[in-house]
Structure formats: structure tokens, C-alpha cells
């Protein structure tokens, strides 16, 4: 753990609604802080270069790259991980749609994909296929060819409109 670092600092934030205070070295990124310290391993590290999106988290409700945010820079903020979305209404619909449309294979990109998709559903109720593709372009998948993911997101958008 990076807590051994001599210049570690105490970081206090909220994780999935629960207060957390833990030492972190300045160089520790948020995804490592959550994975190694809190054992919240749902955020996956696909590149640590800010490109693939597998580590996407919600910071104060907005999607961020867990590998590009430093833990020490998140003092006082609210983090939501995939594990914190078990009871979330949009996430539940997306999970249902993802499995119905076979929108995941190995599942490694899936948590980040769901968090980005949830953001799209929340912000853009009228998004069409093309808009969904542009909005989701910060997340990479190597298995599915994206076909099922686009269908799943559109299915949730249509379902919510129909309600």
C-alpha cells in the first residue's frame, strides 16, 4: 500500500455514501486508492493512460477517469463506483438491457461502460444511435464490436420515454 510513503496524506471523502479517511501518497490515483485500500475492485485498470475508460467512476455525480484523478485531489468529494450503483434505477435498467442485448463478453470494460452509459441516459433522453456512439466514444471494448452496447443503451432510453 502506498500508505508507507513518507509524504502520504490523510484523504477524507465519501465512497458510495460511506465516509472514508485513508492515507494516500500524492501520486496514488483514485482507482488505486479505491481498489487497493477499499477493496472496491469494480473499477478496472485498462490503460492508466486515460484512454480506455474501464476505470470510469462518478465524482460528485460526473464521470471521471479513476486513473487520471489523484486521490489527494478528491478531498471532501463524493465518489460512486459500480458497486455503489446496485440499487440505482438507471443502472438496474442498463444491467437488464446489457444482458438482454449481449452487450458484454469478458466484462472487463463493463463497469466503466455502465457508468458512462448511465450518464448518457441521464443527460440525453433523446439520443439516437449516432449520438450514443459519439457520447460513448471515451470507452473502449475489445470484445463486442459495440453493437450490443448501443442497442442496450437505446433500449433503456426508449423504455424510459415510454413510461
Amino acid at each position, binding site marked *: 500500500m502506498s500508505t508507507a510513503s513518507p509524504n502520504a496524506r490523510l484523504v477524507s471523502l465519501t465512497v458510495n455514501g460511506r465516509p472514508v479517511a485513508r492515507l494516500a501518497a500524492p501520486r496514488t490515483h483514485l482507482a488505486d486508492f479505491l481498489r487497493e485500500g477499499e*477493496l472496491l475492485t469494480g473499477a478496472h485498470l485498462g*490503460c492508466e*493512460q486515460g484512454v480506455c475508460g474501464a476505470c470510469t467512476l462518478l465524482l460528485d455525480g460526473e464521470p471521471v477517469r479513476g486513473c487520471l484523478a489523484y486521490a489527494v485531489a478528491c478531498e471532501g468529494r463524493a465518489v460512486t463506483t459500480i*458497486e455503489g450503483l446496485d440499487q440505482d434505477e438507471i443502472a438496474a435498467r442498463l444491467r437488464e438491457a446489457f444482458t438482454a442485448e449481449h452487450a458484454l*463478453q*469478458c466484462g472487463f470494460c463493463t463497469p466503466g461502460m455502465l457508468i458512462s452509459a448511465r450518464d448518457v441516459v441521464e443527460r440525453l433522453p433523446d439520443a439516437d444511435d449516432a449520438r450514443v*456512439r459519439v457520447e460513448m466514444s471515451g*470507452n473502449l471494448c475489445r470484445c463486442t*464490436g*459495440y453493437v450490443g452496447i448501443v442497442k442496450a443503451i437505446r433500449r433503456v432510453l426508449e423504455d424510459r420515454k415510454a413510461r
Partner: protein
Amino acid sequence: MSLQGAAYKTQAAGGRIVFGVGARVRRKEDDRLLRGRGRFVADIALVGMRELAFVRSPVAHARILSFDIPEQVRGQVFTWQDLEQAGVRPIRAASGLPGFKVSEQPPLAADKVRFVGEPIAVTVADTRAEAEDLASQVVAEFDELPPNVDMLAAAAPGAPRVHEHWSDNIFLETRVGQSFEKDVAAAPVTVSRSIRTQRQCIVPLEGKGLVAHWDRQAEQLVLYTATQMPHIVRSGLSECLGLPLEAIRVIAPDVGGGFGWKGLLQPEEVIAAWLCVHLDCPLRWMEDRREHLVAAANAREHHYEITAYADADGRLLGIDADAWVDAGAYSIYPFSACLEAAQVGSILPGPYDFPHYRCRTFSVCTNKPPIVPFRGVARANVCFAMEQIIDAIARAVGREAWEVRLLNLVPPEKMPFDNITGKHFDSGDYPESLRRAVAGIDLASVRRRQLQGEPDGRLVGVGFATYCEQGAHGTAVYHGWGIPMVPGYEQVQARITADGGLELRAGIQSHGQGMETSFAQVAHEVLGIPLERIRLVHGDTGLTPYSTGTWGSRSMVMTGGAVATACRRLADRLRRIAAHLLQARLDDVTLSGGKLRSGQADITIAEIARTWYLAPQLLPADVDPGGLEVTAGYKPKSDHGTFSYATHAAVVAVDAEVGLVEILDYLVVEDAGTMVNPAIVEGQIFGGVAQGIGTALYECSPYDDAGQPLASTLMDYLLPGFTEVPAIRIEHMETPSPYTEFGVKGLGEGGVIAPSAVLCNAINDALKARGAIVTDQPITPARILAALHNAGAEPPP
């Protein structure tokens, strides 16, 4: 025709609600993955676990003169000297093919480094960041040697040798077929092409990674590793570490995609396995993306010189080809350095029937990372080359390319068909897949559109490619290659539990293919046990029968066949116990819907299971003492594997000003025999096509003249994303294999084979009006603009 496949179809058509073979059921593995509760190797934490980082060679080719390791960190840094003194052996993957030159790869470089990224030292610390700090303090002094960067130069006489005791840089030269110049001397049409494909990285979203520890109670080395072939990794570790197989347990947890990159014994696995015993503490290493892009740039770099002869209609008379594969610095375990080039020789003829063929191949050793079979292995390159040739012939004879394809495809009345290299095409209607693709892509409307021109000035083109894909490779061909792994029978253990559930144990490894679901569907088809009560245990050498693992589109055919075989044996044992309990004649007892019936009487599988486990006093005296647990092995009726096939078609728009390509439509017409789960089949095709689009247009690991890799982040190595992959369309044909359970055929690699050929042909169709042609991949804007710039007034050859 497979009666089994046909029978299944009848049942489905009868309106029965099916969860078995053919049903589009939802995947059992989805829920945990959708909740972030999968367990990938990076998610495993053991008490006292420390982390590894590697010092990697910054140069492509050099002698190591010395290491400078600061005194205070000596106990945390290890080099080959430490491993060699402890008896660790280099990785050695020979081929039995005559003339193969053997490379030895010390897991940490010994006296020489042979590619940028080759590990030369390992460091241990409490965290990865601290281990990397240590690695930055290790300094090695090198005497640099001239690197072999280009495979053709490396293959030329006088090139500096990667392995100095070799006579040249050729791992292996192979020759297939005979010279036939005199047979085709009068051929009306001759076309030649030089074709180059680029080096690629495989890039599963999860890199490689491992946790290694010594289990004191089991007295066993335990390696959790992101692999497609745990049993083969165990065999390789045993060879390198000198430990007997039973002292090693290899476990693949959830694995985040493989596509071939996780189908080898990695040097890092050997090092970590030795070091965790040496230090007596658990160790973890996770390949980061830079390590992957630099040290694992290892796939699909080929060069072809092809001449084709045809008659005036475009009927192929002969193919004469030389092919080079850049195999990198070492031969990998278990597939070796020669599998890819040898495969080129045997599969270049594709799905076509023609009389004369000759192919020489060279596996060239260079100062780059060792080559690993990437999904489709040589097929994506071979299809790219061969399908360009078909289009070139079509131009030469002035016909539509699809017509020339149709003229040369093996027709259905010749099935099963032994082609010119001895491949046994099992079944299907290749021309029909092409005809459906021509209709489905609406060729006529594309031609009209080309005549009208685009309002935005872009050039529209249409392309086709047809291929067949050997899956579930048999024993003879691998025995022939003489590499460290030969697939034989695939085994499955099946056990009915006391409460009527079913456990399946398979040595194969599922990492996205959905085998926890599809194998359950097969078992359900035979036994009728509900899917939710069927559990697959896989990827753990301690719990499963031996398997060569997941590669070569083999899992559904081989392990699926073993699941069916094991379940049928269980069904027989259930019937015998049921006959006794129902006081019926054995011949009168049938199994359906999870119940054994005789006349009006029936008994559930769960009741029989309770009897076996909890009320054995009720069992017949002659009951099989093997109980409700069997291990069954399976091979298809033919050792030649299965042949799925497809035609892909695409329409593109090329912007001649900036060289950008947009895919307007993409259609796949495929036949993988009986589909166990059509959703999973389609998912494999979609994903394969996406990777093929990457191969065609984007992905490339370039090297400079010094052998330095130039793409080390995902900003340089471009993967296709949401906006690059179109809404791919699929049409299914379903010709059951005559040789396999249910008539299934392997198709996992298929989607990736044709896209680069299709898109190249479509782009060339678009560029035709400007007299330009592209032959090399990736087909980048720069390549398209260069082709347009170089286009003369003469139409391309």
C-alpha cells in the same frame, strides 16, 4: 448431414420452449460482471503480498556488459544470474519440422538483449510504484549491435544474426506444392502483387497479470494468471522450474479477453513463480499498457509476393507465392515461431478450387517481441492477400469481382472437399454465402450510386471477401508440427449433486466466450437439468481435467462435445437406477425434461441423486459404483477440424482530399453449423469484425530504424471505438457439420478474418476511378493519399 443437428431442429420447430442447443438464452456470467463483482487477477489480494516491476531493455539488440545495482536495494533486485544459479531453465519451444532453428529465451535476458522491452531484471517492493522506483535505480551497460528491424533485410545474407550460433535469421523455411510454370505458360491472365501487413498488438482490455505464491499446506506452487491455457502454462512452468506437475497449480480467474495474447507461457510467469518460492511471499505483477504495447507488439506482420495465373474468364489456374512472417526474437511456448508461417503455406488457397499451387514461407527472426498467434492467426493476413488477388484477376478480365469469386469457390456438390493442401472442407454452400452477400449489400444500387457521384464529392466503393476457417484443429496436424502441445481428446468431468444440480469441470478457459452458459445449454439439452442448476468449473488445473486450452475456435466443438458425451453417460447411469426404482425394464425408461419415465411412473433426477448419495440401501445390486460422476473424452469423427465459412461485404466512402474512410454498410453472411447460442455466435462475429476493422484501418506498431517501438500508448496505437465500428449486419446460414456433436463448427476467430480484405477491396473499388490502388495495411489516410498521389494515367495493374 448430421442427424443429430437435424433432429434438434425438428424439436425446436415443434414449438418446444428450449433452453438447450439453439436457444438465445441470457448468459449466466453476466450478473457478476455487470455489478463489478467479477474476480480478475488484479482483484486478488493475499496477505503479505508484494509487487513486481521489470527493468526492460531500452535497446533492440545489444550485449549486456554489466549491471549497476545500488548496494541498499540488492536484496530486492534479481537478474538472470540469480535464476540460473537456482536452476531455472530458459523457455524453449522447438518445432519438429525439419530445419527448424531452436531459440532459447532466458526469462530475464542473459548475456544479450534481443528486443526493446525484453525483461532484464525484476524488482520487488510493497507496492508497484515502489517496485518501479527500484527499477529506475538499476542501470545496465550495453554494447549495442545493429538491429534487425525489417524482416526482408533480416532474411538476406549477411544480416547481423539475432542468435549468433545460427547460420542465418530464418527460424524455418517451408515449401508447399510444386513448380508449375510450364502448366500455365499459356495462361491468358497473370497478375502479381506485393502485399505487406503491419505488426500489431493484440490489446485485450485487461493485460496479462499474475499472483504467485507457495501454498504451504498443499506444498504447491499456486499461480493465478490471466491465461487462456492454464494446463499448458503449468506444463511450461514445470519444464522451466524443474518442479513436477503435481507441485504446480495454475488458476485462471475471470480473464478480461485474450484473443491469443494470453495463449503462451510468459517469461514473467516463470520469474514470479520462482521468486515467490525464493522469497517465500505472495507476489503480484500486472502488465501495464505501456509494457503491453512495447514488449508485446507481436502479431500479424507478413510480407507476400504473389503471382496468380487465370484463364480469360477469371478461372484460377495457379498461385505462386512467397511469404515472410516477422516472428520476432524468440520462439514462444507452446505455439513456436513457425506455426504462423507454416499455416500461411497451408491456407493461402482459401475457399477456392484450382489446380496448381506453390508456396514458400519464411519465419524470420528479428529484434522485435516474439510473435503470438492473434485471433485468426495467419488467416486475416492470408485472406487480405488472396482476396486482393481475386479482385486483381477480376480487373484483368473485366468482370465484377464477385463473379470471379463465384467461378472459383468450391461448389456445394463437391462437399466434403479435400483442397489442394489437403484441408478437408466438411460441408456448406460457399457460393450461396457470396450470392446472399451480393444481394444483401445491394451491389446494383452501389454501382448506380457510383455513376451518379456523391454530393460531398467522396468516392464510394464496394468490396467482398470469402473465406473458410478451420477450427477445432485435430491431432495429426499438431503432431506434424512437432510443437510442445498436441491436442488430443478434450475431457469433461460431470457430477450430479445430491440435490439434483450438475457440476461440469473443464480444463478449457472461458474469457468472454460465455462458456458457463453455452456448456450449460449443451448439458441441459441432454439431461434437462435447469440452466440455473448447472455450474461450470473451468480454468483451474487443480480442479479440472487436462486441456490444451482455449485457442483455434475449438471450445464449443471440443469441450461442448465432451460435455454432451459425459452427460449421455450420466443419463445412462440414471436410467439404470431409475429402472430399478420404478421396477421397470431398462429399455422402457426414457429421460426427458429432467425426469425418468416408464409408462405412467416417473422419478426426477434429484430423487435418483438423493438415492445414490443418501439412501444407497435402495440402489440395485449391480449399480455402477462410479455413481453420478463421470469423466468423458471427446474428439470429432474427423481429425481435420471443422470449417465454418462466410462472405463479408462492405460499402465505403473515401474522402480523396484527406484520405479518410467511412464504412457505410457492413454485412456478414456466415455459416458456423448449428449454433448453440445464436446471441453468443453473433457477439463473436461483431467483436471479430471490429478487430478486423482495426487491422484494416487503424492498428499498427511501427518501429524506427533502431528497433524502437513508436506506439507506446493507446493514443498512438489506435483501437476502433464506438464511432469507427458501424452497425454490422449478420445473416446466418446453418449447415450442420457431419463430424461433430449437434453439428457445431468453430467460429470464434471468423469475424476477424475478412474485414481487412473487404475494406481494402472496397477502398480500391472507390479509388479505381482515380487509377489508384492500395495493397498494404493499415490503410491509413496517408497510404490512401500516397496512392492517389502516385496514381498515373494508366489504370492500376
